[in-house]
């Protein structure tokens, strides 16, 4: 378990760096492969709840560190109204909620039905992005969700859905070399990938 958890921690750090090189697809309404979230969600379904919370804390913290923009040291004569952005740390809660959702379906995953968890990764990504956008939009006082935003979120979710089987294959591999059982019928499930 410990070896598996440490390997996953390294995988998260690697993903954080890889995420820097994943561009947004301008032609697809700025949708992107939200690699960090996809990897986290896949991990969330394979680990116990306390470990999931630990990873949610790490991923949310790192994601906010990458994305937070400044709201202070602004010129008061220009910035008449205070600027509201998503507060640093909010992603930790969102990662925690999305991870809890995935972790709740762990019994199904442990039966070897990884494809249902992959589907749930797409749904969780959709909910995460929608929650993040709604929060920002609400804070900025408009609360308007137009078609472009919905398409951006949908494409991002679709990318997560497509990436999830690859991440699960990697997790099965890591579990095997770490001698950690993530599914009851692990051998059979892993063979399906190979």
């Amino acid at each position, binding site marked *: 378990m410990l070896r598996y958890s440490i390997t996953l921690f390294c995988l998260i750090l690697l993903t954080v*760096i890889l995420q*820097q090189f994943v561009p947004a697809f301008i032609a697809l309404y700025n949708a992107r492969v939200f690699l960090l979230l996809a990897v986290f969600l896949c991990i969330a379904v394979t680990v116990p709840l*306390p470990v999931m919370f630990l990873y949610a*804390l790490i991923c949310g913290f790192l994601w906010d*560190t990458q994305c*937070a923009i400044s709201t202070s040291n602004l010129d008061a004569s220009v910035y008449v109204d205070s600027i509201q952005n*998503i507060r640093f*740390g909010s992603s930790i809660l969102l990662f925690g909620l999305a991870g809890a959702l995935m972790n709740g379906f762990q019994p199904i995953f442990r039966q070897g039905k990884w494809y249902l968890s992959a589907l749930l990764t797409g749904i969780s990504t959709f909910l995460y992005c929608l929650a993040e956008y709604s929060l920002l939009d609400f804070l900025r006082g408009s609360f308007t969700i137009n078609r472009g935003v919905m398409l951006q979120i949908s494409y991002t979710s679709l990318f997560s859905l497509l990436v999830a089987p690859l991440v699960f294959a990697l997790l099965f591999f890591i579990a095997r070399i770490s001698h950690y059982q993530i599914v009851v019928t692990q051998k059979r499930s892993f063979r399906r990938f190979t």
Partner: protein
Amino acid sequence: MKPLNLIALLCFLGGATWALTRSDRSVRSIQNAYYSAISPFLKSGSAIEEKARNFSNEVTHSRSLEAALEVTKAELDKLKLIEQRFDTLEAENARLRSALKFTENTKFTLIAANITRRQTTNWYKTVEINRGEESFIGIQNPVVTAEGLVGKIDLIAQDFATVILLTDKSCQVSAKVEGSADLGIISGRPAEYGKDPMLILSYLPKNTNLKKGQRVFSDGRGGITPANILIGTIESVESGAMYSEALVHPAVNFNDLATVFVIPREN
């Protein structure tokens, strides 16, 4: 709930609360430490990316040469390739000439930078440039092109910086309208589906008589953005209960940014 899960949940909420209560200065320190830590990886990654791109280009080139030897239309294909390359160079030349002219015409010291990444976050309108503290630029420095104002530096690292674009609501600039004494604040507006991003000029006097087509410039208030940098042109004006607002079409095409110029603080 199992005691271990409960303890984990409480620790998680404690950690989240700690992060949520960080001041902006603390967040900046965390971000600086983070980018310093991953900077070597980013540099290595960029180098690998460049090598891969060069290798890919070489392979493509070799393949086209091989094809040129094998088929009778080789010379034609080659000429087509040359023509394409010529077009690219011509476009690049025109862009650089335009940029050079802009540099000569302005009174500021400008630092040229290339856009390395677009839309670095999910929702904020940002781009990353290949200039950082090493180039003597700083936070809140305005970023411009030959067409007009692009945005401001938001986050800065040793050799790169993040620019928050004018189309984001977080980027606000004091503005004036040509042929009018009215002043207002320009900020971004959420882009509508299938339409160009627009700006909002707010806090205009209630009975303003601005017209469509009038140009909007920065007015220099606050001292961060120099005065008289073109921002855009007025599309429409709407009167409110206390203030009026104008919809402004930005002068810069934000989808076609390649080279930008940072105006450092000493200006």
